[in-house]
């Protein structure tokens, strides 16, 4: 089973080819540009000549069935893994929110913020202040002051998202970022997406929810290919 190439389309439009997908954001100043991305795991093609572009202030949803390579594409765009072929260019800092919260179980939210602070050029105080502002907008349970292992799945995900947003970013790569969110936090998340767009941030959201596809500017669908486009490395 292999993924051929993405189809990129506005909401409720017919799928378009991969080259059409590139057209809107190939203009100078595109926030994210990935071209000809190929990735194999143990000989199995996961991504085959996939291209993706996101303009500043644009929100793009990535959809596709399980195993289509949505998370792999996000990890490649974030720079966490190398593609076998293809290129990615990102203008500015990337904020990446992984599907599985990568957190230290025995550290609290404040300690996570303090840990990320020096990497982002923030003082401990600045990072905790900024992190609290972000977390409070998603109703994070500060009163608990708990270690992450004692937080609910939704609260862990809120911290996961806040760490991606901390310090500001030019491109946000959010891999199913609201898993476990309650309704209020979910609504708040999409209000934030609109705000980030207004601020010129390019936003990519991996989602399975059909309702979300009305809230973005474009939808990219990763589909299963029958004919390989990438040469075997």
């Amino acid at each position, binding site marked *: 089973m292999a993924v051929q190439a993405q189809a990129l389309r506005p909401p409720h439009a017919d799928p378009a080819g991969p080259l059409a997908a590139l057209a809107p954001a190939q203009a100078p100043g595109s926030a994210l540009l990935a071209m000809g991305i190929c990735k194999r795991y143990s000989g199995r093609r996961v991504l085959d000549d996939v291209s993706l572009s996101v303009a500043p202030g644009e929100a793009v949803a990535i959809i596709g069935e399980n195993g289509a390579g949505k998370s792999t594409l996000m990890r490649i765009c*974030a720079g*966490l893994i190398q593609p076998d072929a293809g*290129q990615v260019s990102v203008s500015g800092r990337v904020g990446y929110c992984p599907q599985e919260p990568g957190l*230290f179980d025995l550290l609290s939210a404040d300690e996570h913020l303090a840990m990320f602070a020096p*990497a982002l050029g923030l003082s401990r105080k600045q990072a905790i202040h900024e992190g609290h502002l972000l977390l409070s907008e998603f109703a994070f349970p500060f009163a608990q002051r708990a270690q992450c292992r004692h937080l609910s799945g939704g609260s862990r995900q809120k911290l996961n998202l806040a760490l991606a947003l901390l310090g500001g970013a030019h491109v946000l790569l959010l891999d199913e970022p609201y898993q476990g969110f309650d309704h209020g936090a979910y609504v708040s998340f999409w209000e934030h997406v609109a705000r980030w767009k207004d601020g010129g941030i390019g936003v990519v959201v991996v989602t399975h929810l059909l309702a979300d596809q009305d809230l973005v500017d474009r939808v990219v669908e990763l589909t299963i290919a029958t004919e390989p486009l990438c040469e075997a490395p």
Partner: protein
Amino acid sequence: MSVRRIFVTAKMTGLELGRRRIAIGLLTALPLAFYGGSVGRGSGAVITGGVAMAFSISGASIFVALTARPVDPRLILAGYHPTELLLGRLLLLEVFGVAVSGLFSVIMVFGSTPNHPWALAAGVGLVALTSVPFGLVVGGLSPHELEGVLVLIGVVGVQLTLFSTQLAAKFLPFWGGQRLLDHSVNTVAVGAAVPADIAYAAVLFAIATYVMRRQAPSVGGARRHFARAGLAGGQGFEPR
């Protein structure tokens, strides 16, 4: 390289390790049990207890490396250099090693009255020195804690079964410390124990750095690519 980032990593590692009280308590009790169990059987107790201390410090290092693995890519993406993370952990774990080895030295000096107490303390110190990078390497390569701990038990176990004068013992990472411990209670020459141990620790740290960098995100290469493309302030990357 940022000193602040190294110290913040060390501090957070210390907080995390400090909250594993039961695991650390058990790990520290393990070599004490080895020593206590063999103290009535002559000079070998010092060697057994001293080398078994690698269980404590390497075990803690394995836990640290494994718990950090899912978070490290994000930290590196945010701006940490892999070496900063590794140095921060090394710093904290070596401090932990000095504390544990100091405690063990005192217990064994009073419990076994060795011929050369300084050699006993130095031997235990060398075991601690090598244990940290050894644990970081094993933790960096093991898929889970179980596999890492089994490798640790295997290596330390084999070292315990060999005499320090045997050739095979020299190929194991704790030989230098074992030889000094042997010297502290027997008439065995020290030989190249100290430089061998330091070399082992250095090589293990180099391997740990290599493993960490291999597992790190490609952000460094990304920046280079973007610079080549003449696009400042961003990142891009292509296959290695």
